[in-house]
Each structure stands twice: as C-alpha cells, then as structure tokens.
C-alpha cells in the first residue's frame, strides 16, 4: 500500500517530515534521575569486596551514596511529608541539636544539624532529593511541607540534588535564598554570611528582596550579605570579567565596572550580560544591549527598544535563547563544539 507510488502522492507531506528536527532537547536535565537509578543497580551488582577495589579517596562519596541508600531503604518509619526529614551520618560525628548522630535519625522543623571539620551527613529532602552536608557546616530545617521544602544554611557547604518541579526546594542563606528550578548545586556560605553557588545541573534562582539572578548549569554566582545575589558567570569566565562583575555587584563601581564587563565579555558570557542589562541605568543599558546583541544575536521578537525599556516579554524571549545556548554548550561539553553565538554545533 505504501511505496514509491504513495511517496509521490504524499510528496508535500514527506517534504515537511524531512524538515522535522531529529533531536529535541528535553525541557529538563534527565540525567540526575538516570544516575540515581543506575547508581543503585551498580551498587547492587558490585557486591562484596568493593573496599579492596576502590582507592581511599573514593570511599567518601561511596559512603555518602551508601548512606543515602541506607536512608532510602529504611524510610517508612518516619513521615515523608511531615515536619521531619531523615538524616544519616556519613563520617565523623554530626550533631542534631546537642545530640550526636550515631547512624540515622530525624531532623525536625526548627532543629539544627551541625558538622565539625571531620564529619559529614546526608539529609533526605522529603521525596524530592537529598542534601550532602559537608564538614564545618550548620544547617537548619525551616519548613518540611509538600510544597515548601526549606533549609537555612548558616555557614559551611552543602551539595543539593533535587529532582522535582521548580520552586519546591529552598535554601536560605544570610545573603539570599537559593530556589531550586530542578537542579544540582554546591552552595557554600562563609563565616560572615557571604555565599557562592556553583550549579552543576539544571537552574537555580537566587533571590534577595528585589534582586534576582538565575544561575544555569555550568555557572557560578556570589552572594554577599547586605547586597544579595551577584551576576552569574561561567565556570571558565575570564578573571577580568569576574572582578568587574564583583565591583559592579558589590562595590557600586558603576560605569567603570560596566565597561570593564563589556570589554571582557565573550559570547559565552551572554548570561552575565543579560543580567547586567536590568541592573544599570538607561544610558549604560544601551551599551550593554549593543554589546550583548553583538555577541549573541537577538532572536525574532526581541527589539532594542523593548529591551531598553526592560519589557518583560522581550527580556524573557532573549533569555530563552541565551539559556538554551548556554545549556547546549554545557551539556555537550567535550562532545560537540557548540557555537556560543547560536547554540548550533560547528
């Protein structure tokens, strides 16, 4: 019934089919879910004798994974959605409040988990992910609800991995709040409350009063007490760009810093410039837009006038194009050479 004769009959349709993209990027990174599933299977396959096959340095992450697996296996006794999260010791002697954590235990709303310089722990974030609590860290459980999973990181470092719809998991810090948009990240807070986030999967939003930054996979951002989140920058951003952004964000360096940012920016830094666009006065904004447009051509529907008056739809349209390019560049790093101006493989 089908064959060359039918192909001729449906020539127009087949011409359209030929234009369909063979590849469609999923709307979120699916790897964390896959990794979690294959990690479980790999551990089950590995069996006894594993300690002899792994170097000593590999044992810490393995211990964290084992602790996580133990937590998952033991869950059921503690409410998943109540005001209690499960926590387990990975190394040393973490404390929940004043009580040393021997193996596994519960972290209740209002309670504090603290690690010293040799202890580590893993917290299960309801059903949606987990947080590795690294040495010298103090973290509190603020809220444990189905729609609001919230920790406060007073100091130290955590690694969070969440596989859930956006805006269900929050980490408050003295300089701003990290809002999960479906992601994995490391967040560190120093003794005076300044923070640094490094996103390794998906996106994170940093919020503080009226300042907001969106940090994609492969980007970092500083947060400073009294200022809030800074402008995100790429892992491989030039030092000159990082310094200029810090001066702009936290030292009120104004036009000088903006022009240093523009001079140092590459197409790969479009995420940074997009953020700067909304943070400068209208005169400087023209320079920022022109530089951004020269590095990453604006998509259809983005006009200079719209961008300069900070039209929300225009900016979001531009952002969508920029973040997709950054996303492709990050996830295909080492696999394909992605043009940072277009997102296409070269």
């Amino acid at each position, binding site marked *: *019934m089908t064959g060359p004769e039918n192909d001729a009959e449906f020539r127009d349709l087949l011409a359209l*089919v030929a234009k*369909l993209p063979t590849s469609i990027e999923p709307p979120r990174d699916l790897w964390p879910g896959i990794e979690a599933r*294959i990690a479980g299977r790999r551990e089950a396959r590995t069996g006894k004798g594993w300690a002899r096959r792994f170097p000593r340095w590999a044992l810490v992450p393995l211990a964290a994974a084992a602790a996580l697996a133990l937590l998952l296996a033991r869950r059921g006794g503690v409410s998943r959605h109540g005001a209690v999260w499960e926590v387990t010791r990975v190394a040393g002697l973490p404390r929940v409040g004043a009580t040393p954590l021997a193996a596994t235990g519960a972290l209740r709303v209002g309670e504090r988990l603290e690690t010293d310089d040799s202890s580590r722990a893993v917290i299960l974030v309801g059903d949606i992910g987990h947080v590795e609590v690294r040495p010298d860290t103090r973290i509190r459980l603020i809220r444990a609800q189905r729609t609001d999973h919230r920790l406060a990181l007073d100091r130290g470092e955590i690694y969070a991995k969440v596989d859930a719809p956006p805006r269900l998991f929050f980490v408050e810090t003295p300089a701003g709040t990290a809002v999960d948009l479906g992601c994995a990240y490391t967040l560190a807070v120093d003794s005076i409350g300044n923070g640094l986030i490094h996103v390794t999967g998906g996106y994170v939003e940093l919020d503080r009063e009226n300042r907001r930054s969106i940090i994609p996979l492969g980007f970092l951002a500083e947060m400073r007490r009294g200022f809030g989140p800074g402008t995100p920058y790429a892992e491989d951003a030039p030092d000159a760009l990082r310094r200029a952004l810090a001066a702009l964000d936290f030292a009120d360096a104004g036009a000088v810093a903006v022009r240093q940012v523009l001079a140092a920016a590459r197409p790969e830094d479009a995420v940074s410039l997009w953020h700067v666009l909304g943070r400068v006065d209208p005169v400087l904004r023209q320079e920022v837009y022109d530089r951004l447009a020269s590095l990453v051509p604006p998509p259809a529907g983005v006009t200079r006038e719209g961008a300069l008056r900070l039209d929300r739809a225009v900016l979001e349209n531009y952002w969508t194009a920029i973040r997709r390019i950054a996303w492709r560049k990050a996830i295909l790093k080492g696999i394909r050479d992605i043009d940072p101006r277009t997102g296409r493989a070269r």
Partner: protein
Amino acid sequence: MGLEPSRSDRVGVTDLVRRAQQGDRDAFQALYREHVGRVYALCLRLSADAVRAEELTQDAFVRAWERLASFSGESAFSSWMYRLTVNVVLQERRAARRRSVRVVTTDDPAAAERAERGEQGGAGGDATPGLSLDLERAVNALPPGAREVFVLHDIEGYRHEEIARLTGVAAGTSKAQLFRARRLLRGMLER
C-alpha cells in the same frame, strides 16, 4: 533521516562505550548527553506525551546501562540505542494496554478530529517551533497505532518488516497504518 551513525559513532564513541561497559558512569553520561535529544524526540513522538516522554527517556537509558554488556559493536551505538528506545516505548504501551481495565480500542480515530478542533494540545509542538509545529501537533493527534508506524517509518527510517517485528503486527498492517497516518495528516494540515 534514518539511522545513520552520528559523527561521534565514527570517531570516538567506541572508547566511550567501552568505558561505559566497564562501569564508567562519566562515560555513560557522555553517551547520554550525545544521544538524549534524539532519544527524547523519539519518545515524545511515539508517546505524544511530554511528561511520559521524559520517563520513557530515563527508562531507555537505564535499560541501556543494564544491557550495555550485550552491545557487541556490530552496529553503531546510536542504532542500538534508538532500537532499544523503540522497544522500551512499545513494551510500555503494551503493558499499559494490559493494565487497562476498560476494553477499548487502542486506536482512537476520534483523536485526530478532536485535535483538529483544538481539544488536544500537542506535547511535542512546543518543542519544535516554526513550520514543523503544525506537523508535530498533527502527528501527536494520530491514533496510536498509526502514529507509531508513521514515526518509525517516515521519521526514523525503519522498514515495514522491521516495524512488524518491533510492534508485533503484520507488515501489511504496518503499510496500511502508514497510509492511514499519511492521509489523516494531510487532511489535518490542509484544513
């Protein structure tokens, strides 16, 4: 289109596959990054459900991880991966059919008409802007059997004999479904 090996199959993926077969998760992640777009597109078009497509994509890669040892390298890794994906999707559909309590025909000719009236949003449509948008939506609105055959034959380049083996229908049925799919699509696109 079809199943030609991608560039990486020819120049580097063998080493990645070998490392992944030895349990190197980073290598497997690199394979995932390389192929996820194609696998997701396949799942999305076969299932016509964006959320389900994400789950199926994950299932396919987990299955690939489990069966990597059986990949001998006689075909390109991409071909093996996409065929495995098709199997995952079709098996899931068969399982869903068995789970179904109600006795219904799995092919729902009314779906196409509903879509023409705008009652069904195309899951894949949002992901493919431009001229292909209408076609993606129309494909999503096809009855499942016709959609599977159309996606496998006209988009993925499988032959009717292969489709027959994969789906468990006769090659003649596959041809009939393809003709039906093309006619329905043309009707939808012409309106």
